[in-house]
């Protein structure tokens, strides 16, 4: 109970661990990856060095865990439960998805959740073909594995993130055929010198990516999207078209483009399940926090993309504030981290401007045909989803899942949840995010956990689900 527990080893989690440790508090830093850094600082998995190298700007940054930080890598946090005076975090540690993983439980009075976000992908005909990737997948493979997702790649979606992805693809030898931005051009937004963008440190970084694309002759088209992917076993070509202001395709502008891969990203979805398990209050689909990054639950702090999509700088600033606040809760002497707090305020202004400039507009729903898969896991087509809404008068996420099957598969609605909710006219963006078991586990792992957790009734615990082992 006397240690700060941080879940997530990206910019927010690392900053939180560093801040709390700097005040003399013991910290546990739990992360699913083998190396720290998260998605933004994704490290080269093939290098034996520990070096955070997301971009030229951070190429020489190293992060060494302070002595009083226990970094627990390869650790999947699958549950958070409230206990007397704090929370318990349940973790499986070891090779990804291997039955040999071991359970660990960390109890704390000061929990920092920094679980980040993942790409939002919108469905379109053919999006379930191999060769269609999220932008984050293309980025992770390029940065972490040195591999390109294809030889001829179309990058599509919305927001500034498309630029580093296209630039990384070029860096690992792919030919980026074009970048299709569904909203207005990022470059125009960057050139606006005042308002939210003034003094934003990432502007230079983005301008560099734009430069890389220009040098390689990569066309960057605004109000354009990939509307379909074609191919038998994997992507052979895509249809690209112009969009109107609401993202409905402009008739007659369709082009067929030869490509063996597509990387699409339409912003990010926060990884909310642990925060929801801790009963943190949400606001507009993100975890609501106060000026010290405290959530609505005593002893639980949140930082980074969980509280709003604003990029690595904001995440690190929020992480630092959360780390100091968590240390203070454990009795450390901490002065208000005024500099980090002012970086948070500036970052949030930028995040609001980003969200306003790069929203997902409703016209995407016109891209789907009746037979287009919405839920990839359970193979639920748009037709089946609409039937559930129309014939069964479904008006909430639970019944929608049960009637249509969307969101009931292995990913637990992570990929389809927001899309299915929008298609069905549900207005809660986090409607699908409640997952009591935050990451899928094997039944044998759950059984082992229940044995370890319930020593009182040893006989019942030895026979999970009433089955003799």
């Amino acid at each position, binding site marked *: 109970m006397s240690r700060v527990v941080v879940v997530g080893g990206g910019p927010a989690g690392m900053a939180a661990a560093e801040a709390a440790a700097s005040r003399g508090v013991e910290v546990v830093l739990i992360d699913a990856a083998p190396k720290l850094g998260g998605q933004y600082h994704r490290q080269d998995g093939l290098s034996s060095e520990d070096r955070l190298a997301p971009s030229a700007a951070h190429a020489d940054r190293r992060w060494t865990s302070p002595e009083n930080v226990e970094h627990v890598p390869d650790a999947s946090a699958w549950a958070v439960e409230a206990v007397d005076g704090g929370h318990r975090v349940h973790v499986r540690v070891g090779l*990804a998805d291997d039955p040999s993983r071991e359970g660990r439980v960390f109890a704390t009075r000061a929990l920092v959740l920094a679980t980040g976000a993942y790409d939002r992908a919108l469905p379109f005909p053919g999006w379930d073909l191999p060769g269609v990737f999220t932008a984050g997948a293309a980025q992770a493979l390029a940065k972490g594995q040195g*591999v390109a997702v294809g030889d001829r790649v179309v990058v599509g979606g919305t927001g500034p993130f498309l630029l580093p992805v296209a630039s990384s693809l070029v860096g690992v030898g792919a030919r980026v055929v074009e970048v299709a931005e569904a909203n207005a051009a990022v470059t125009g937004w960057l050139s606006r010198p005042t308002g939210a963008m003034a003094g934003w440190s990432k502007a230079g970084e983005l301008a560099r990516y734009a430069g890389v694309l220009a040098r390689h002759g990569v066309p960057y088209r605004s109000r354009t999207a990939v509307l379909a992917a074609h191919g038998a076993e*994997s992507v052979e070509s895509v249809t690209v078209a112009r969009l109107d202001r609401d993202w409905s395709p402009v008739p007659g502008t369709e082009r067929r483009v030869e490509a063996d891969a597509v990387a699409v990203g339409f912003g990010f979805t926060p*990884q909310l399940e642990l925060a929801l398990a801790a009963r943190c209050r949400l606001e507009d689909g993100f975890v609501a926090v106060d000026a010290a990054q405290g959530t609505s639950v005593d002893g639980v702090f949140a930082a980074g993309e969980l509280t709003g999509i604003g990029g690595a700088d904001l995440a690190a600033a929020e992480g630092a504030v959360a780390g100091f606040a968590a240390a203070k809760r454990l009795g450390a002497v901490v002065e208000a981290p005024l500099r980090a707090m002012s970086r948070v305020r500036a970052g949030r202004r930028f995040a609001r401007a980003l969200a306003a400039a790069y929203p997902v507009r409703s016209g995407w729903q016109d891209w789907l045909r009746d037979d287009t898969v919405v839920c990839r896991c359970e193979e639920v087509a748009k037709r089946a989803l609409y039937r559930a809404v129309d014939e069964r008068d479904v008006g909430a996420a639970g019944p929608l899942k049960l009637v249509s099957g969307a969101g009931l598969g292995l990913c637990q609605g992570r990929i389809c949840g927001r899309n299915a909710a929008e298609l069905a006219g549900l207005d809660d963006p986090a409607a699908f995010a409640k997952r009591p078991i935050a990451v899928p586990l094997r039944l044998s792992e759950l059984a082992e956990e229940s044995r370890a957790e319930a020593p009182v009734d040893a006989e019942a615990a030895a026979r999970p689900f009433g089955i003799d082992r």
Partner: protein
Amino acid sequence: MRVTWDGREVEARPGQTVAGVLIANGVRSWRTTRAEGRPRGLFCGIGVCFDCLVRVNGVPDVRACQRLVADGDDIRPQRGAELPS
């Protein structure tokens, strides 16, 4: 490092993920879906979507994007829902 894909030896290095090895070796599809038998491979790349499931050393439902390869790994495609062998 000695790693096999569907019984045939493929090039692999420490630090590579199963997905990294497969894509570097030109394999893009390694699973078929339970209901309609559609081909699938890597999608989200960061452990969220569970589309890239593969069989490693007889154990199905391993995320290829998250699993690091180890010497001697026997990696095989996953067809529909499979039980551990």
